[in-house]
C-alpha cells in the first residue's frame, strides 16, 4: 500500500519534472560541461601514459560531476515542497490517503529519476571508449554507483531544505549552503590540526565516502553511511512536514 501511494506521486512528479524547462536547461549545461571536461581529460591523458583511462579521464570527471551536482541538486529539489506550500497543494496531499512517507519517498524517487536521466547523458563517454578497446566495466559501474549515491545524498538535503520554506530560491540557497558546508567539513578538520577530529569530520563528508567507489572498492560502511545520510535527511523532512501541525 505504501508503495502504491509513493508510486502515484512519483509518477506525477516525474511528469512534472520533464515538462518543466529547468530539466532541459540543466541537461544542456551538464552535457556541455561534462563533454568539455571529457574532451580535455582525454587530450591530457596522452601525457599520463602509465595511467589507465579510468584514472586519467573518469576519476576526475566523476569528481567534477559530484561538484556540479552540489549546484544542480538544490535546483532540482527546490520546487518539490516549496511550490506545494506556495500553491497550498500540500493540503491536498496531506488530506489524501498518502502518508508522509509516501509523499517524501515519492518526491525523492522522482528527483532520483531526474538525476539518473542527467547522469545517463554521460553514458555516451564509456560507450565511445569501448570502441577503442576500453573494458574496465566493473570499475566504471562502481564509479557510477558511488557518484549516483552521493548525488542522492545531495538530493535528500535539497528535499529537506525545500520542506522548510515556500520560497524556491531560499530553498535552493539553503540546500546549497548546507552542501557547501558539508564539503568544507574535512578542510576544517585539517585547519584544527587534530588528527582525530580531522578523521571524524572527514568521515562525515559525502565525498570521502564516494572515493572508495571510484577506486572500485565497495565497502559496506560506505553504503551504510550513504543510506544513513539519506535516511537522516528524509527523517528531518518528515519532521518538517509534521511541524505544520505544531
Amino acid at each position: 500500500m505504501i508503495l502504491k501511494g509513493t508510486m502515484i506521486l512519483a509518477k506525477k512528479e516525474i511528469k512534472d519534472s520533464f515538462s518543466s524547462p529547468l530539466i532541459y536547461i540543466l541537461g544542456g549545461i551538464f552535457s556541455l560541461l561534462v563533454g568539455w571536461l571529457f574532451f580535455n581529460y582525454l587530450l591530457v591523458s596522452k601525457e599520463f601514459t602509465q595511467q589507465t583511462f579510468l584514472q586519467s579521464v573518469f576519476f576526475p570527471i566523476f569528481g567534477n560531476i559530484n561538484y556540479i551536482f552540489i549546484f544542480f541538486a538544490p535546483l532540482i529539489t527546490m520546487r518539490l515542497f516549496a511550490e506545494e506550500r506556495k500553491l497550498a497543494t500540500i493540503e491536498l496531499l496531506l488530506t489524501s490517503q498518502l502518508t508522509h512517507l509516501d509523499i517524501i519517498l515519492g518526491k525523492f524517487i522522482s528527483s532520483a529519476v531526474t538525476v539518473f536521466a542527467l547522469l545517463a547523458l554521460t553514458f555516451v563517454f564509456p560507450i565511445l571508449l569501448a570502441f577503442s578497446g576500453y573494458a574496465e566495466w566493473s570499475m566504471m559501474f562502481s564509479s557510477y554507483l558511488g557518484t549516483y549515491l552521493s548525488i542522492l545524498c545531495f538530493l535528500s538535503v535539497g528535499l529537506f531544505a525545500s520542506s522548510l520554506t515556500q520560497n524556491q530560491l531560499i530553498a535552493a540557497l539553503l540546500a546549497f549552503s548546507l552542501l557547501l558546508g558539508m564539503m568544507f567539513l574535512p578542510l576544517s578538520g585539517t585547519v584544527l590540526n587534530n588528527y582525530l577530529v580531522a578523521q571524524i569530520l572527514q568521515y562525515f563528508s559525502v565525498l570521502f565516502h564516494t572515493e572508495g567507489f571510484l577506486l572500485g572498492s565497495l565497502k559496506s560502511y560506505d553504503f551504510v553511511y550513504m543510506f544513513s545520510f539519506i535516511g537522516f535527511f528524509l527523517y528531518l523532512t518528515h519532521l518538517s512536514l509534521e511541524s505544520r501541525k505544531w
Partner: protein
Amino acid sequence: MTESAIELFNIKKDYPGVVALDNISFKVKKGSVHGLLGPNGAGKSTTMKLIVGLIPPTSGQITVSSSIGILPEFPPLYGSMRVKDYLSFVYDIKTIHKKDSNKKSYVEQAIVKCGLESVSHRLIENLSRGFKQRVGIAQALVSNPDIVILDEPTVGLDPEAIEDIRNLILELKKDHTVMLSTHHLHEANVLCDDVTIIHQGKVIQSGSIEELQKQFQTGFVVVVLLEGWSVEKEKNFLFEYPGSKIRVIENVGDSTKLEISHIDKDYLKLWTKWLSTNCDLLSFEKINLTLEDIFKSAIKGEKR
C-alpha cells in the same frame, strides 16, 4: 433525532500566545447545508482544518461519520495539469485503500456535476477564476465523499460565477452533507439550513436559521404605510398599546412609513384593526429578522 455527520465537542486550539478556538462545540446534521459564519479571523478556517485532520486540536473531540472532501480557502490546483488528469490524480491519492476501480466514472461524474465538460482537456492555469473554483470543488467531490467542506467557496468571484457556484452547492445538497464557511450573510441565508456563528474563537450561536430567528426576535416588528398619521394619533396608539414603539421611517407626500414594534406581545391583529380604523392603511408587513440582524445581535451578545 437527526443523525450528525460532524460533531465537535469542547474543541480548543492554541497556538503560541493565541487561543484560536476556545472550547467550541456544535453539530452538523446529515444531509444539511451547514454554514460557518464569522468575521475574518474568527476561526472558521481553523475549525475546518481541524475537522479534516490537517491540524490536531489542543483538546476536545471531533467525530466525523464518514469520508470528507474539502475545498480549502485557496483551491489546491496544479496549474500545469489538465483538468481531467488532475482529477484523476486526486482520485488516485484519495482512494489508495479503496478496492473498486471505477475511477473513470467518478472523474466523469465530478466533471459533469461541476460543469467542467467544456474545459476538461484544458490546462488548469489557463482557466478563469470561476472555473478554477469549480475544479477545486470537483477535486473535493471526485472520491465521492459523503461530506463536502467548502471554505469560502465564492470569495473573489464575479457575480455570475458566484451564482453558478451557489447553484452548484444547492445541487450538492441532494447527495452530500455540505459545510461551508462564508462571511456573506446573504449567501448563508440562501444556501444554509443551519448556521454556526463563530466570533473570536467562540461559538456564539448554532442552530437552524428559523430557530435563531425565533430566539433573537422576542418581540414583533411591522412596517406600515398609511395616510393621515399625526402626532396626536401616535399618542393615542401608544396609550392604547403600552410598551409598543413607533419609529417613523420616512414621509412620502401624504403617506407615512412606520416601524412599529413590541418587545413581547403579539398585537398584530389589534394594531391592524386600530390603524385601519384611524388612518388609511395602505400596506402592512410583518418583518422577520434577517441573518444579518441575527449575526450583528449575536456578535454584540444582545437580543432584539
